[in-house]
């Protein structure tokens, strides 16, 4: 039986399943994972779907093995993914750094639950967003996307593969339990309309002289040779030179790590995604993402009905952070409000780029932040002016 790769059509679909279908549509043909709520349905769906399309599904002994198998599969040329939640995400951190250092593309889906530790296995959280950026040791940069709907579970999973391949970095889909378990309309386009950004590949046939980490282009991304193609490449997590050989000098180290970071910064405009709602004349700018942004949009709509000039910047890419967009908004805004299901993470990033007061609407997780506390925060700053800004509001 030949299963269909792209399930073109209109569906009423579970967020985790939409993520799995996004992976299949993106050409993902390898999944390794370890069950963990609320991400398990992604693995279950792919266990069924990958064999239908000639892909490989394997349930590993833990999340460390899962991410490492994904990196190995990608080194051999496959589009490869794993999915997990907080505890598993923590276990993966060391080898996410390996993927960054070896420049092996991979996609990691974290369907966030209440944390830290085992936390709230079946309930939502958004407290892994800084871990996505900084979780592995050392300096490196990644991309991370926060879907707010099953539709975006589909779309952003595809984008994650494209960004991972195009820039040879680990890319994370930072979903949450609400979005992962929500059932909503998902439109899957025809196969030929699925965007595809390819991995850059060696321009010359295998032979002497291929230097796997030599930079030929402005984008700082080296072409990638896969296992078994005859290039006889060496990949190491040690600091390495253009040949991929270990080189323990401070100069090589600085050059390599700077390039890995600069590679993402220089190409950030191709990775950054956001959504603007009622921002044109907004004086009160609410910033939110993932499931919380659904409440934030409602709060902003209600505020507008009351005549309050509020708007919403919905972060789709958490990383790279759309710093220029926030800086631009700072020219018109009197106050910022950040709503997120943690005790203040992305707010730190907003505070880096604006001089206005930034008010937080936080909750440690376990239940969605409803529109009310966000609306209340908007009204407070609207009626008391920016002097009321800068405080932190607990939504709990």
């Amino acid at each position, binding site marked *: *039986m*030949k*299963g269909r790769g792209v399930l073109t059509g209109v569906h009423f679909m579970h967020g985790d399943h939409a993520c799995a279908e996004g992976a299949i549509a993106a050409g993902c*043909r*390898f999944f*390794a994972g370890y069950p963990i709520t609320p991400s398990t349905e992604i693995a279950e769906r792919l266990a069924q779907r990958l*064999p*239908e*399309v*000639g*892909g*490989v*599904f*394997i349930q*590993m*002994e*833990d999340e*460390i*093995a*899962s991410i*490492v*198998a*994904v*990196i*190995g*599969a*990608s*080194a*051999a*040329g*496959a589009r*490869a993914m794993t999915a997990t939640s907080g505890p598993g995400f923590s276990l993966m951190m*060391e*080898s996410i750094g*390996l993927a960054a250092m*070896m420049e092996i593309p991979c996609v990691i889906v974290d369907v966030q639950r209440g944390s830290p530790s085992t936390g709230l296995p079946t309930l939502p959280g958004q407290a892994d967003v800084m871990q996505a950026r900084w979780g592995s040791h050392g300096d490196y940069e990644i991309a991370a996307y926060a879907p707010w709907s099953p539709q975006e579970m589909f779309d952003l999973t595809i984008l994650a593969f494209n960004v991972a391949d195009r820039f040879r970095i680990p890319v994370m889909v930072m979903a949450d339990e609400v979005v992962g378990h929500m059932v909503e309309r998902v439109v899957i386009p025809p196969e030929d309309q699925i965007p595809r950004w390819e991995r850059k590949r060696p321009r010359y046939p*295998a032979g002497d002289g291929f230097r796997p980490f030599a930079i030929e282009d402005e984008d700082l991304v080296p072409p990638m040779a896969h*296992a*078994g*193609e*005859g*290039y*006889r*490449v*060496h*990949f*190491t*997590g*040690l600091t390495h030179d253009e040949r991929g*050989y*270990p080189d323990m000098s401070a100069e090589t180290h600085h050059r390599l790590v700077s390039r890995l970071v600069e590679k993402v910064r220089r190409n950030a405009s191709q990775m950054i995604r956001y959504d603007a709602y009622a921002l044109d004349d907004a004086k009160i700018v609410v910033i939110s993402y993932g499931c919380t942004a659904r409440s934030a949009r409602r709060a902003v709509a209600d505020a507008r009905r009351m005549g309050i000039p509020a708007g919403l910047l919905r972060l789709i890419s958490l990383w790279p952070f759309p710093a220029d967009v926030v800086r631009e908004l700072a020219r018109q805004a009197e106050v910022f409000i950040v709503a997120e299901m943690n005790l203040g993470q992305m707010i730190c990033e907003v505070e880096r780029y604006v001089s206005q007061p930034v008010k937080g609407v936080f909750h440690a997780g376990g239940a969605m932040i409803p529109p009310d506390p966000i609306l209340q925060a908007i009204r407070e700053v609207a009626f008391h002016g920016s002097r009321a800004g800068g405080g932190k509001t607990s939504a709990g």
Partner: protein
Amino acid sequence: MAHALVAEKHPLDDLIRRDRMPHIWCPGCGIGIVMRCYAQAILESGIPVERHVVVSGIGCTARVPGYMNLDSYHATHGRPIPFAIGIKLVKPELTVTVFSGDGDLAAIGGNHLIHAARRNVDIKVICINNFNYGMTGGQVGPTTPLGARTTTTPYGNPEHPFNLPYLLAAAGAVFVSRWTTLHVRQIKQDILYSFRKPGFTFIEVLAPCPVGFGRPNDIEDGVEEMRIYRRRSQLVYRVPEEVPWEALEVDLREERPIYVGRFVDREREVFQPIRLTSKG
């Protein structure tokens, strides 16, 4: 007087990254011997060099892939087996060898080791057992004998070691053998054999680490350890008929046999991912 014969080219030249020499290993270290056996086996395997891939974790042994002129991957500590599984499942036509140390494979990576053997995934493991963590300066490891001295067991090791062949046999490997760095022919022969044997194979090679294990345990140098191997190695054809599994535990400091040989050679169904299509 005979003229010295200078060879312009060594048969293994193509398999070694000569531009990476000299290597990092200490005088008397056993790792290089095993790497040479691996290179020789590749040469004799008849499998094109491009189809060989070598993966390691971290450690002195794990530096081997960096010196092999193959597609080679030096992964995180303890993780070469899942890395190799990823490669193998995507490109089953490749011969994927994991070349790593006892600590890497049996301590931090121990879970992957037993699960890969249980699955019987088709990868070839060469494990250098030097009874300690060489790279980090001679600490106790999962194969350090009870009572042995290392930098973190200055009063003697209070723990029992793993008996690796017994562990791998129990976990499900289809081929398990053990040699010492003295047994270069057998090592090469078994690596060659493992290339042709479908499933999870495990070759343990006991090797001197004169710096980390030898010196604190009164083994003067690498040569002295080779002498111990010569004096005490005893070939076993069938376990447990000839000797019980428990007897395969090694302690170089005790005057008892070091059993070597092919302990397991059996058939089990090889792990295959589920496929519903012939080609995807």
